[in-house]
């Protein structure tokens, strides 16, 4: 893909023009990531509110009807439901790994088979998360397999 950057007059708003015939999936994903680059997540710890960059999130987990945001070391509580997070970020690096978790692909170090079609994802912070059998196709589709 050819990328051209043109200088614009000072003070004018930056503009991105994409020239293509038929936008394919990778291009659509690129457009989505440009659009959602400014989208931030809000997480809570006790009485504090934090603004979190989705790129820093390792995974989301739902425990007892509460959704938690797991970053490298910190854990925040989210106000959104897991299905809302799934639909909000399904076009980015996130995918549903089980009924209760959504994982950021870019934070997966490697995967290993467990049994009966299940996989275990080793994250960059050393945590291990299971990928349920029924969500393995979602993961594979995301990777283009």
């Amino acid at each position, binding site marked *: 893909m050819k990328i051209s950057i043109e200088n614009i007059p000072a003070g004018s708003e930056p503009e991105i023009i994409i020239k293509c015939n038929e936008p394919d999936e990778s291009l659509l994903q690129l457009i989505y990531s440009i659009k959602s680059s400014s989208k931030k997540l809000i997480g809570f710890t006790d009485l504090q509110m934090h603004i979190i960059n989705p790129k820093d999130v390792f995974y989301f987990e739902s425990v007892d009807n509460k959704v938690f945001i797991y970053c490298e070391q910190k854990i925040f509580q989210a106000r959104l439901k897991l299905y809302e997070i799934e639909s909000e970020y399904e076009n980015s*690096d996130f995918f549903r790994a*089980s*009924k209760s978790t959504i994982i950021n*692909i*870019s934070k*997966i170090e*490697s*995967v*290993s*088979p*467990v*049994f*009966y*079609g299940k*996989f*275990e994802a080793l994250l960059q912070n050393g945590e291990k*998360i*299971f990928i*349920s059998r029924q969500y393995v196709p979602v*993961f*594979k589709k*995301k*990777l*283009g*397999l």
Partner: protein
Amino acid sequence: MKFISYFKNSLKDFFISSGFLMILITMISEIYSKETIRTSLLFQIMLFSLAYVFIKLAFMNKNEMSKKVQLIIFNVFLTLSEVMILLWLLFFSPGKTMNIELILVYIFALIIVKASVYTMMSINGEKEAKLINEKLIKYKNGND
């Protein structure tokens, strides 16, 4: 989830499935104008309920447990559910065509099939994981 909660849930499942089968049998007996339910039917209900509970326990997500423990629990409960079905075949199957020798042949065949399925799945899993890991590296490089 701790052991006690697994036990509680399993007990609940056992009573639910027993109740469901009991209602079903009562309805069928009513349709065929049978006024009594044989004791053996109650034992059959218990066997099927136990088989259901064991299958559910085998396939339940136990993500908080280690890989090895999950594998052991999966195999133990799946085998127990199969044992329940075999017991039904041995004691209650229609016409009682089953005998001990046939049961042993069934168990042997079951073990062979299970071992081969497990080996095949494990080989496939390794292959798939290798492919996914390669794609994962490409995906991450593409995103950088």
